[in-house]
């Protein structure tokens, strides 16, 4: 099996790395440029305002990184539908696609960070069904604005009235839409209906395979070709032989698993991610590939060190290409 793709998530907040608690664009920028040079496929940044003690706004950072790179693809992981008006988002993404020469992966999601919404005065619903419905309306608007000349849309959450979004994105028919999340009833159905790519936070390989079976069923029920959807998984990674480093990572992961909804329980925490020497990392990647993962969105745990991204690209990735 070949053709696996690898993306790197930028350390856009001060708790992305186990070994660095700062936040500095002057470290992120050269790191992003190095990832491009090393041949990574994609770069990502999460769309939140309050993670850790300091965080960069997603779109501002991505637009800057797009302007200093040439070929690597760029996307939010994921843009939360309730942070901005969706027609404005369509315009922002079309502009980024123009500026980047057609390199946008449009990651979009239904949101989970309630406190952040309340803090920033943004509308929030406790019902996932309502949020997913809002996300779907937003995607319909964005897609229409990217591909049609005048768009009039009347939804329950959002509307437009003869809206025009010019210039259009460079990518035709439009930038790939990635939807993220693991909810099996509603979210995966939305993926089947609307997404060109699907991403989910770290799962054990057998669990990932099971989600894919659910997605496939949704595809079959809704007349969508399952193969047309790029399957991705977001996880943390570190290539290391060192016991001290491994212990440090373990403690660090446990320390914030109490408030991070994406973090697994403390038992066997290292096994949930891709952590270990080259052989271990290779084996883990292979497990996921067998489970159906086609693309990894990776948080290197040792940022700003470049060791993991270098070893991965030089010693491990070539055998999966």
């Amino acid at each position, binding site marked *: 099996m070949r053709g696996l793709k690898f993306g790197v998530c930028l350390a856009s907040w001060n708790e992305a790395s186990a070994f660095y608690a700062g*936040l500095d*664009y002057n470290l992120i*920028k050269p790191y992003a440029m190095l990832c491009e040079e090393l041949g990574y496929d994609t770069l990502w940044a999460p769309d939140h*305002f*309050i993670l850790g*003690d*300091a*965080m*960069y*706004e997603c*779109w*501002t*950072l991505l*637009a*800057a*990184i*797009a*302007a*200093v790179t040439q070929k690597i693809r760029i996307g939010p992981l994921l843009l939360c539908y309730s*942070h*901005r*008006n*969706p*027609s*404005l988002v369509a*315009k*922002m993404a*079309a*502009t*980024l696609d*123009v*500026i980047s*020469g057609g390199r946008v992966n449009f990651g979009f999601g239904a949101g989970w960070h309630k*406190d952040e919404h*309340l*803090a*920033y*005065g*943004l509308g929030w619903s406790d019902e996932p069904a309502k949020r997913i419905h809002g996300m779907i309306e937003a995607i319909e*608007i964005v897609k229409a604005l990217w591909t049609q000349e005048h768009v009039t*849309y009347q939804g329950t959450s*959002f*509307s*437009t*009235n*003869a*809206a*025009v979004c*010019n*210039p259009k994105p460079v990518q035709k028919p439009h930038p790939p839409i990635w939807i993220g999340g693991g909810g099996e009833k509603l979210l995966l159905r939305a993926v089947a209906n609307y997404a060109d790519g699907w991403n989910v936070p770290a799962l054990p390989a057998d669990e990932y395979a099971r989600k894919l079976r659910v997605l496939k069923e949704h595809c079959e029920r809704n007349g969508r070709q399952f193969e047309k959807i790029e399957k991705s998984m977001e996880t943390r990674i570190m290539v290391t032989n060192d016991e001290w480093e491994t212990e440090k990572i373990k403690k660090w992961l446990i320390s914030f698993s109490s408030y991070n909804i994406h973090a697994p329980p403390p038992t066997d925490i290292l096994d949930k991610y891709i952590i270990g020497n080259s052989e271990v990392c290779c084996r883990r990647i292979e497990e996921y590939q067998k489970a159906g993962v086609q693309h990894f969105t990776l948080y290197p745990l040792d940022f700003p060190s470049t060791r993991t991204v270098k070893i991965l690209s030089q010693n491990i990735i070539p055998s999966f290409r």
Partner: protein
Amino acid sequence: MTPNKVEFGFALPIFPGAGDSHSRTPLLREIDWSLLRKSISASEKLGFGSVWVADHLMLGLNESILECWTTLSAVAAISSRLRIGTIHLYNLFRSPSLVAKMASTLDNISSGRLDFFVDPGHAGLKEECTAYGFPWIERDEERIERFDEALQIIKRMWTEETVSFEGRYYTLKNATCNPKPVQKPFPPIWIGTMGGEGWSDGFGTEKIFRLIAKYADVWNNTPASVKWCTGKLQRLRDECLSAGRDYGKIVKSLETMIIIAKNHAGLDRLMKQIRSHNPKATFYRGETQLRETYLYGTPDECIERINQYVKLGMTRFILWFVDFPSDEGMKLFADHVLPKFR
């Protein structure tokens, strides 16, 4: 900020205005990012102080315009000395808490180069607002009230650790915004007035002067004659008096068009070109109008015109070079006009 130093900014032509669709970019027919990128680098190299990006959703020929913030962030990334600014960021399009976060991020990414130019929105935005599904706010007073709340929120988020706010329009609960902006206490706040070209005279409201006196580090007007600016400055002086604000501490700026050529034959050629791309002459009429409202002339004539504004106390100029996509105007300006104001 050095108020008395005269500085010139380059307004980035992010929307085409040919076909009588907009006055700012009469020769531009389509957006070409590589060309814009070149003009950003040229601005930095030629000695302009800043680059400015407009905030509209539908504007100019085919309603074609790049999104403001995405573009501005790219400008920050590919420049190192230029200040970067919005003209103007409309309070109608984004929630103020998000704007505070975006602006502090951009101030960090640019190492403290952001000029934060904001606006409550005006009657001229009704079409794009309703098209994009933003609730349209008809009354000037309400737009101003919202803007006042937004500015309170943004300033507090830039300077305080945790912000809760119960306003009439906005509610925040324990909002944090870290990292803080690099510039202290925060990036300069620009607030402007509109009108002076005829078509834009009815946009905006005089009520904005209250907020300029209250919040602004810089006041700006859209393209306007010396006479128009004199009137606005008098109004600003009055407002400062009643608000107890030091008028001298507010920097005065003019956003305007520049029609510049080596000699009169060159100017005639440029005007002929503009007329052929804009056959209805909606914006560009007689030479008298051009000479009064914009910067029109040879380099020496432009220097003389700029000095008329400088005499009023205006020291910042945001320039739309109407000959864009040509770079002759900006080069001519850099060679012959910029040195006179160093």
